[in-house]
């Protein structure tokens, strides 16, 4: 694998062709750009703007708390401020910022031309940017949510929080969830399928490992908050009593669902940051990362274990002690993998000659702050201690040590480290030291005293406090620290404005002598040719790599299809499999994104008709976008260099679409898992609500048979397509639609005696049935889309990705709905 595929000089004009093909759109169309470098930078910048905005809210709060009995900000606004600060920092800054770093860096780090679904990244960015900004503006109308970033009911139910405010959170966060999941699908498929030839799992950069785990965690964690927000909004808007104790609901159900998302969320933020540190430290020490295998182990272990910690946010809710102990054990055990990473970084620094520049300083600052936060984390993981510290400023100190130490300092290190990758100039080293100094001192002055404020009993989320409790001095010091921290960040922004000039081909380049592929000479097309990777630190161990890549001596030095393309490789060994033709910029993803955000936000203020219009436009945008996908296959395999000929079309399990649909099915399964959990949880709380007698099994058997028959027809349709019998394919597909609609009609009809507003049981049953209806509607839309394409001659035995997508999702949905039938009709009989 080490011989060059194209050792001879390349013909003139190839590079110009690559530049032309990958050039960004100009004029008004400039905003339709989809290339990961542009979208990545816009994404990071937007996330950072939200960091500044939420930081300003924090400064307002710190000003209010500087002295006792302050009258600057009243309780109403203060509630909005802390809710928005937490919500924006977590949903609009931290997750998007690390996701954005992934979109910016991963293709180049893996040696791919771009991510496999570039328009999906653009969609994720625009839904988030537009929706997030409008969400922020709700503050100025006095409509911002007030229930804390965790929005616990019953406080947030309609009875105690009437008005739009809480709806802004519940629906406003909807587009963030969609955006995060879209980005996660992009990142998973990108990392597993577009790595350079030779980049096996064992040679994959740690950042890519971290982003893979991050994206998988989003797939399993975000569904919990999707279900939670759905239930609470259904209760607020339609009175379905999931959380109302008087009708058999339970407010704790919310906490279970929210924290099943909320705790992994902390690691969703931390793991990519840790991955960045694992890239920065070897460059600064000029030595390979110590314990690569152990670091990968730590990432995987943390990713999984973080799903077993959620109840440690609920230690004070009255759950039995033994149950709490399981979570106490898991919460302390998770310190082990985090410790492994910290020791690996220290060992790497110890084995090399460390350059004490700004990224290094931020990493060292991170080590200090994060380890302190980890230690207080082990303290609050211990149940009796947590009961003392619960809801005090000790927890505020702990979580800021973990999040700012674990994410903000690494992100600043990453900014200083990777700016030369996408800017003409590096940032100023002299100002950087000041930025670090101010931030480090300011942070510790602000948050270290809060441990004491908390131990002295000051509760969180109070807008003011009386004098004479011993809190005044500590609060004043914290406020001074917060402003020093803010001064550091302001200085960073100043330096950024002064020095950052977006550039790819004429970027500052590999100023750190780093070892990973993103430091190869690159342009919008990523690398001139796609290298063969033979080691974990390719730029160090393959000395001529940069020169050969630039000279086009590796794979794909040109554009054999005449358009945008990248090599798809196998997920384990990264063997070249086929050539993915990639889309060009267009308006459809943007229109879909903007109107998706508008749909959710208009629903918030109960403008239902305009919301539905926007929703329809968003769906239209998506359909237009999807219509252009699955282009006509190119018949002959194409030469990508060194005699390697790759097909330029793929359907089935090797296609990128198949992988995306499988990840989407994992998301759907997680959502359904949370719904099933909610049903069973409410049964443990209120078993008396579950009926002793149910209507006969006749209708449900009819539903099940119709569903299975619809799946069988899809199988038949597949067989017809494979044999080229397009008419019988379409007929079978149409038949499947009829059977599905009939099945759902029978199921809907069998619950007419039940009311969703009378009891939590009725609400749960209706939820399961309505979800079946929603998924059914999605299936019908997908099948009609395939039929329309077939009518236009765009589906045949080779060109069949659209059909396969619908087929996969159909079988999945039928299986899911059958599980739902078992739950709704079988479980009550089992326990009666």
């Amino acid at each position, binding site marked *: 694998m080490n011989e060059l595929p194209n050792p001879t000089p390349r013909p003139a004009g190839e590079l110009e062709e690559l530049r032309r093909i990958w050039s960004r759109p100009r004029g008004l169309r400039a905003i339709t750009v989809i290339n990961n470098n542009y979208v990545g930078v816009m994404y990071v910048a937007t996330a950072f703007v939200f960091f500044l905005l939420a930081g300003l809210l924090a400064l307002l709060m710190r000003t209010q708390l500087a002295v006792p009995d302050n009258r600057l900000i009243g309780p109403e606004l203060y509630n909005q401020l802390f809710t928005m600060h937490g919500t924006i920092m977590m949903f609009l800054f931290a997750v998007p910022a690390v996701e954005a770093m992934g979109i910016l860096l991963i293709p180049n780090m893996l040696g791919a031309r771009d991510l496999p679904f570039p328009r999906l990244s653009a969609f994720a960015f625009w839904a988030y940017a537009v929706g997030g900004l409008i969400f922020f503006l709700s503050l100025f109308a006095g409509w911002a949510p007030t229930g804390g970033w965790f929005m616990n009911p019953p406080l947030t139910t309609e009875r105690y929080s009437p008005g739009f405010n809480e709806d802004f959170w519940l629906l406003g966060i909807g587009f963030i969830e969609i955006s995060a999941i879209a980005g996660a699908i992009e990142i998973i498929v990108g990392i597993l399928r577009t790595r350079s030839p030779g980049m096996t*799992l064992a040679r994959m950069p740690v950042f890519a490992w971290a982003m893979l785990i991050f994206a998988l965690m989003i797939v399993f964690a975000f569904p919990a908050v999707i279900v939670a927000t759905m239930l609470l909004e259904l209760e607020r808007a339609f009175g379905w009593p999931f959380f109302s104790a008087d009708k058999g609901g339970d407010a704790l159900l919310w906490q279970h669902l929210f924290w099943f998302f909320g705790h992994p969320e902390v690691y969703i933020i931390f793991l990519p940051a840790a991955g960045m540190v694992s890239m920065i430290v070897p460059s600064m020490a000029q030595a390979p990362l110590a314990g690569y*295998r152990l670091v990968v*182990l730590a990432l995987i272990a943390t990713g999984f274990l973080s799903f077993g910690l959620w109840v440690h946010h609920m230690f004070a809710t009255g759950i*039995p002690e033994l149950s709490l102990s399981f979570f106490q*054990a898991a919460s302390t055990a998770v310190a082990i993998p985090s410790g492994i990473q910290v020791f690996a970084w220290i060992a790497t620094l110890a084995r090399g000659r460390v350059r004490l520049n700004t990224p290094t300083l931020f990493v060292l600052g991170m080590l200090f702050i994060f380890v302190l936060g980890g230690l207080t984390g082990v303290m609050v993981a211990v149940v009796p201690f947590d009961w003392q510290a619960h809801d005090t400023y000790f927890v505020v100190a702990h979580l800021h040590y973990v999040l700012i130490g674990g994410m903000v300092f690494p992100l600043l290190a990453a900014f200083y480290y990777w700016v030369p990758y996408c800017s003409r100039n590096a940032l100023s080293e002299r100002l950087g030291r000041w930025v670090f100094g101010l931030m480090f001192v300011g942070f510790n002055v602000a948050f270290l005293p809060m441990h004491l404020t908390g131990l002295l009993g000051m509760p969180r989320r109070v807008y003011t406090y009386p004098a004479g409790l011993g809190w005044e001095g500590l609060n004043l010091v914290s406020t001074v620290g917060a402003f020093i921290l803010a001064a550091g960040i302001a200085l960073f922004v100043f330096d950024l404005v002064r020095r950052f000039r977006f550039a790819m081909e004429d970027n500052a380049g590999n100023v750190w002598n780093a070892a990973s592929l993103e430091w190869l000479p690159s342009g919008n097309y990523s690398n001139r040719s796609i290298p063969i990777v033979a080691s974990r630190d390719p730029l160090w161990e393959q000395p001529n790599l940069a020169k050969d890549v630039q000279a086009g001596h590796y794979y794909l030095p040109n554009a054999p299809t005449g358009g945008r393309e990248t090599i798809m490789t196998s*997920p*384990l060994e990264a063997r070249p499999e086929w050539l993915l033709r990639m889309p060009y910029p267009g308006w459809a993803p943007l229109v879909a994104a903007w109107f998706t955000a508008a749909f959710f936000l208009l629903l918030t203020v109960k403008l239902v008709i305009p919301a539905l219009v926007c929703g329809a436009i968003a769906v239209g945008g998506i359909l237009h976008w999807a219509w252009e996908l699955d282009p006509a296959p190119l018949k002959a395999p194409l030469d990508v260099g060194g005699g390697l000929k790759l097909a330029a079309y793929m359907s089935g399990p090797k296609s990128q679409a198949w992988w995306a649909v499988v990840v989407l099915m994992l998301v759907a399964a997680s959502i359904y898992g949370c719904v099933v959990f909610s049903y069973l949880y409410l049964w443990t709380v209120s078993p008396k609500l579950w009926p002793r007698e149910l209507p006969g099994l006749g209708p449900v058997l009819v539903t099940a048979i119709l569903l299975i028959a619809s799946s069988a027809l899809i199988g038949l349709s597949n067989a017809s397509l494979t044999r080229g019998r397009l008419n019988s394919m379409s007929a079978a597909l149409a038949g499947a639609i009829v059977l599905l609609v009939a099945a759902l009609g029978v199921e809907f009809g069998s619950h007419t005696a039940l009311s969703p507003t009378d009891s939590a049981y009725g609400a749960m049953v209706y939820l399961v049935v309505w979800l079946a209806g929603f998924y059914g509607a999605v299936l019908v839309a997908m099948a009609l889309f395939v039929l329309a394409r077939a009518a236009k001659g765009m589906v045949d035995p080779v060109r069949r990705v659209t059909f396969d997508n619908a087929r996969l999702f159909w079988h999945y949905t039928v299986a899911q709905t059958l599980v739902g039938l078992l739950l709704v009709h079988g479980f009550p009989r089992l326990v009666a």
Partner: protein
Amino acid sequence: MSFAATALRISAGVIIWALHFAAIYGASGLFCARGFPELVAPTIAAFTAIAVVAALAVIAAGWRRRAEFEPWLSASVAGFGLVAILYEGLAVLLVPICG
């Protein structure tokens, strides 16, 4: 080996941990809620024993080919899972049941 099989092998140890965790938490919650405290300890002991055997099997399978990356990862992840399983199961000996 296929990607799906490799991914399952690598995560087998922590999947066992997750199933064990869900089982002991679910069983103790349900038995306490329905008034069967005497069933909690034996159930947790049984689940823990099954999970330990399963994790040891994954460790043994991976450790034989530990020079390769994926088998090493599979064994090590399972080793970590084993520690977490034992640590969490231990709680039943130390903390009052249904208290």
